[in-house]
């Protein structure tokens, strides 16, 4: 029965077109993601994409390993040697600067980490490294914690005591020194994945929005509901078909996107801490774990929006109304937040599930029952449970449908 339900969905022209559009979007986003990795060769010429990733990987992996005090000091020394020539220091001679930069690409992320650590909390000073000694540079991990404490004490932003303690504890317990190797493939993947997941969720919502209403739209409802299974097993089959489309499409397209990007840009760096890219993150996760968190959030968001679309489809018997639902759930609040300042509770709205990347970067903390946690960590299980509740509701709504 599920097979027939799937056949109904994919025999429709508009749904076939939606799948084609999804494939095109995936290719476009993959190409854009691939071009996020840049490389500057020894002549100062810039490239991006697969070849750039390959060259950058070679450079960075020469520094592969834990970034200890010794490595930090060595980085400072290496950089000093490269940037000591007159040509490089000349502000007019950009070509020479590019050539010099080409030599520092292997250590560029470590340099950035030092700059961030020695910059004001919400700023980035690209020359901070020039003003510190090797001994100071070696204290980069301590600096991360002391910066946070200073910022919390400054009162620039208000945090309750519990949240302050949580932040400091998370910073202090982060495992250091960081492991370093080429990680740009994962970094690029994560930067664009939220956009891709949103498009994927909307198209999946579109695909499932007709599963229930199309019986009414095509006037097949009379025969459907007058059959033995019409008000029980057939509804379960429709729900299963919806679930399979959501899960199947999500898994397949996320895996395809991941595979394309990582195949082109390289898989190394999965075990590097996410702080290489998100210095202020409170999460103790690697790039791979962060990826899993983002993908899990996206799945729950897609499942929830699709379940709502199916409920609207079953309740109002209109595919058009159902299609709007995922847009409302996943796009309305991000859109509104650009126009007006939304209250803090908006961090709990389902659109946040598709933006876990930003939650990893800048957490919105919440205190529940005396326990401080990030909203992303709260909404994921909450909406997973809510999605689980929506399916029995969907069954009951459709079971009681009347043909008028």
């Amino acid at each position, binding site marked *: *029965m599920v097979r027939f339900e799937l056949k109904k969905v994919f025999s429709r022209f508009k749904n076939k077109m939606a799948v084609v559009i999804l494939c095109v979007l995936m290719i476009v986003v993959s190409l854009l993601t691939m071009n996020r990795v840049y490389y500057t060769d020894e002549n100062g010429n810039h490239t991006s994409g697969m070849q750039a990733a390959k060259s950058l990987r070679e450079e960075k992996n020469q520094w592969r390993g834990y970034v200890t005090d010794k490595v930090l000091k060595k980085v400072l020394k290496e950089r000093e040697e490269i940037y000591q020539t007159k040509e490089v220091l000349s502000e007019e001679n950009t070509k020479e600067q590019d050539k010099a930069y080409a030599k520092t690409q292997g250590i560029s992320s470590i340099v950035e980490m030092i700059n961030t650590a020695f910059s004001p909390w919400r700023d980035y000073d690209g020359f901070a490294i020039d003003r510190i000694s090797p001994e100071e540079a070696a204290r980069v991990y301590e600096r991360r914690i002391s910066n946070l404490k200073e910022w919390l004490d400054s009162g620039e932003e208000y945090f309750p005591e519990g949240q302050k303690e949580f932040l400091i504890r998370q910073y202090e317990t982060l495992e250091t020194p960081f492991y370093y190797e080429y990680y740009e493939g994962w970094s690029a993947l994560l930067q664009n994945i939220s956009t891709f997941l949103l498009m994927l969720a909307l198209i999946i919502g579109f695909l499932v929005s007709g599963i229930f209403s199309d019986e009414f739209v095509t*006037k097949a409802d*009379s025969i459907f509901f007058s*059959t*033995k299974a019409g008000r*029980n097993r057939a509804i379960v089959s429709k729900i299963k078909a919806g679930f399979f489309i959501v899960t199947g499409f999500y898994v397949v397209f996320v895996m395809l996107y991941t595979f394309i990007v990582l195949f082109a840009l390289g898989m190394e760096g999965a075990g590097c801490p996410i702080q290489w890219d998100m210095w202020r993150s409170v999460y103790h996760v690697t790039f791979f774990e962060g990826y899993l968190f983002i993908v899990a959030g996206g799945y729950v968001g897609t499942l929830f929006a699709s379940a709502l679309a199916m409920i609207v489809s079953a309740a109002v018997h209109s595919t058009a109304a159902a299609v709007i639902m995922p847009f409302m759930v996943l796009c309305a609040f991000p859109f509104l937040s650009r126009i007006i300042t939304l209250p803090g509770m908006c961090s709990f709205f389902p659109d946040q599930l598709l933006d876990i990347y930003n939650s990893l970067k800048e957490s919105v903390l919440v205190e529940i029952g005396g326990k401080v946690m990030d909203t992303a960590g709260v909404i994921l299980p909450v909406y997973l449970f809510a999605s689980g509740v929506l399916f029995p509701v969907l069954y009951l709504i459709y079971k009681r449908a*009347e043909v*008028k």
Partner: protein
Amino acid sequence: MELKFDNLTKEFGNFTAVDHLNLTMTKGVYGLLGVNGAGKTTLMRMLCTLLKPTEGRITCDGKDIFEMDGEYRKVLGYLPQDFGFYPEFTVKDYLLYISTLKGIPPAAARKRVKDMILKVGLSKAANKKMKKLSGGMKRRVGIAQAMLNNPKILVLDEPTAGLDPNERIRFRNLISELSEERLVLLSTHIVSDIEYIANEIWLMKDGKLMHKGRAEELIHSMEENVWECFVEKDLVSSFVKRYKISNMKSEMGGVTLRIISREKPFENAVQAEPTLEDVFLYYFGEKAGDGNGAV
């Protein structure tokens, strides 16, 4: 098998579509006759568990059909008046899908689908997409799907609507053939469809049952006579205003009228044998045409 309507009522807001019906059906063909809006489709939808009654209940061998749920629908076959389909499905796929919905095991379903396709004369169109079928072919697929589970109760709502005369006769014969050994409720506003195949006819108006019985019984229930007379064209309008006219036939120099009237309407009028169409006009005259107009 006994189906019983017990004080059955369906209201849509202030409108009563079916008004306190009390009827019993056993084996045989029941013809439900009434003008559009009489409540035939609403009654059939309740019988097929598509609509819940506002009041009263329908029982099958004493059990409420809504409580029986799938057990009741297992023995039900339904051809709706305006039935939809899945346009991209082939005839075979569509029937296989409906078989699954009817709970027929896959192997048996394949055989049954093949048999039904043969029975309704669609062998050549078995692999055609539903959207490519003609109106008559779609109706035949409709009857095939209704018969897939070899139902004990067959509900056919306006099965011949929109068919050309040839198709209608073929379809009527097919229904007659399929109606053996089961309970069939056939609704139509085409009198001749019912006249030939129904064992019992129900006349329905404004949600109520006006009369029921065999065709002859209904004909005899008429308290007026049927007359035929030839009149000049100029006089037709005055006859239409005064009598129920069941037929008009223009001929050279005048019009032959078929009039329903207790008294002889015209000196040259000849009494004719009443038919079911005359009965229909007699009971539903007001809605059959303009005022007391023609059928």
